[in-house]
């Protein structure tokens, strides 16, 4: 089989992984080809609007396991292929020199056994780093069940190492991925967390959950995420709307992936990481997110008694609670208001977007609308009308 056909098969099997992030690595590199960029770079956007930063491929799609939701499962009748390490190097180096990509994201199905698969991944990455002096970004998947010594070896070669949790509860994992269990994932996460430094997985670890393949609620999902962030210092949890690829009585009967739901989860995830929100602030037990309004607005409407907030007065964390105001705007407001009293006009000049914020703030005790418009009905109606009918995708890199 030629390399053209292999690439087609092994990119096709890799495309469901949501991660394409290439940021956060401070790995020093003075020699050889390439470097890692701290802020991450998108090189292209595919027809589905997702960022292409890395050459995202599987080493092989010939899997010994049989996860229900996966295109590569053993019982599927599909074409199988396996790259040689040299082939992967050839594509990576040639793509990188032409500036098509920021680096490589190498994942794999489990061929023969976990350690055998890990060895193939290690060989490939080590060839890239040592023979080809490649210093671009590398994200590798840790294979569940691989020995700690192989994790250690691989971690020293890559920028990011990750293990996918796939589903938010042990019961769901048991149901859909009977060869896996939560423990085998968290064991790897723990090892990565404990060894992380500038020479071992410098860009940190991430993971991914499939959304909508099981009955788990959004509350279960974001709770799981916040646990993972806390226990293993993950950089990112990625959410991947369930794609109906396989037919199985264990899988839901859907034809359209739940993209809006996925989007809401990304927003909530953002709020937990950068805005000081806790899972329990955002949802009640077993609840799902409102698909009409984003999680921050939903929260603000529920806690309207905390508003309107005075821009010239409230502290950083209070500013962050205002819909439409993020860390950049909040910091800017704090700096500028030391120099002058901020009016609505100033906010515009400062580049603070008022579209949502204007309902929830006062500037020097002025409200944007007539004061008696400050009530839930008015605000909710306006905001629902303003919400874009089409979902917006979050940027999938940091």
């Amino acid at each position, binding site marked *: 089989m030629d*390399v*053209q056909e292999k*690439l*087609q098969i092994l*990119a*096709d099997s*890799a*495309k*469901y992984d949501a991660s394409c992030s290439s940021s956060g690595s401070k790995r020093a590199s003075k020699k*050889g*080809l*390439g*470097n890692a*960029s701290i*802020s991450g*770079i*998108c*090189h*292209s*956007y*595919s*027809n*589905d*609007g*997702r*960022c*292409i*930063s890395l*050459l*995202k491929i599987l080493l092989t799609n010939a899997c010994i396991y049989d996860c229900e939701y996966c295109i590569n499962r053993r019982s599927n009748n599909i074409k199988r292929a396996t790259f040689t390490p040299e082939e992967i190097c050839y*594509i990576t180096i*040639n*793509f990188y*020199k*032409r*500036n*098509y990509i*920021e680096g490589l994201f190498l994942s794999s199905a489990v061929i023969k056994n976990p350690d055998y698969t890990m060895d193939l991944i290690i060989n490939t990455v080590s060839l890239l780093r040592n023979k080809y002096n490649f210093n671009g970004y590398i994200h590798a998947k840790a294979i569940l069940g691989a020995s700690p010594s192989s994790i250690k070896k691989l971690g020293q070669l890559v920028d990011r190492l990750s293990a996918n949790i796939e589903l938010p509860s042990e019961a769901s994992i048991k149901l859909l991925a009977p060869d896996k269990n939560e423990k085998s994932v968290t064991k790897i996460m723990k090892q990565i967390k404990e060894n992380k430094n500038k020479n071992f997985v410098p860009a940190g670890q991430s993971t991914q959950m499939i959304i909508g393949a099981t009955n788990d609620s959004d509350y279960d999902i974001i709770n799981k995420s916040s646990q993972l962030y806390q226990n293993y210092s993950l950089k990112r949890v990625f959410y991947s*709307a369930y*794609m109906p690829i396989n037919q199985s009585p264990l899988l839901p009967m859907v034809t*359209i*992936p739940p*993209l809006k739901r996925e989007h809401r989860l990304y927003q909530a995830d953002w709020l937990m990481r950068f805005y000081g929100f806790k899972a329990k602030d955002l949802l009640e037990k077993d609840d799902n997110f409102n698909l009409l309004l984003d999680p921050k607005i939903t929260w603000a409407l529920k806690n309207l008694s905390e508003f309107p907030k005075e821009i010239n007065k409230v502290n950083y964390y209070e500013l962050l609670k205002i819909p439409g105001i993020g860390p950049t705007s909040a910091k*800017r407001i704090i*700096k*500028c208001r*030391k*120099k*002058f009293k901020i009016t609505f006009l*100033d906010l515009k*000049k*400062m*580049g603070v977007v008022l579209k949502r914020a204007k309902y929830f703030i006062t500037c020097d005790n002025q409200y944007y609308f007539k004061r008696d418009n400050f009530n839930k009905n008015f605000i909710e109606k306006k905001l629902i009308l303003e919400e874009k009918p*089409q979902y*917006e*995708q979050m940027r999938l890199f940091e």
Partner: protein
Amino acid sequence: MNRVVTYIYDDTFIDLISLIAKLIINKARPYSIQSKKNYVATLFSEYKEYEFDPKIAKKLLNKLSHKIKKTIINIYLSNNKSKEVVIYYFIKNSLKYKDDIFQMRNLKCVHEGLKISKNVTRETHKFKGFTRFKLLNNDVLYAEISPTNDIIFLLSKHFKVRLRNEKWVIKDVERNIYCIYEKGKTYYVNDNVLEANKLEFDENENQIEKLWKNFFNTISIKERENKKHQMSLMPKKHWKYIVEMEDVYEKSDK
């Protein structure tokens, strides 16, 4: 009738700084500053020019912090029509506020200046991703770009590190500027030292491009297709120079 005075300078950054230094000394309030090559004389306008003085230009620059200098260079590299006047007022206020200038966003020159500067930084960042090289048969990587702002200088700093052991050339097609890199050094030339239609590609170039296009088309998930979103992130104006979009570009009405 009052005539509008346009101050003109000799098309380089240091000339502009020299002019601004003189204007500050003379306490002028310039209505318009233009580079010689952009200045168009009209019946009711009048222009003024000062002699270039590298000493006072240097003296002025020395009073500005690194961060302020970086910002005004960014503004200078933009394609904004009134960037010179913005730079004038930005510098004038910087002398007064020092680095606090970055918090004085209620001043017009500051919020406009920072907006322009950010726009330049942003475009540079985009081109770190969108620039596409092709390998020529003499082992040189060659790229053509057509950015809105004059970012080739900022962009080259990035590739100087990333492709440090390669030989490469980036051409800004509209401005007819080439950045040539070899062994740690960059050179800027603006003649047609390399004639683009005479370029000969490496024998594997076709195969690699085919591999890339193959990957690009495969990695998209059909059920999630959203070309509108794709287009808003990678606007049409870039397609001509992005190899994986060239087929779409050829078919589209340009």
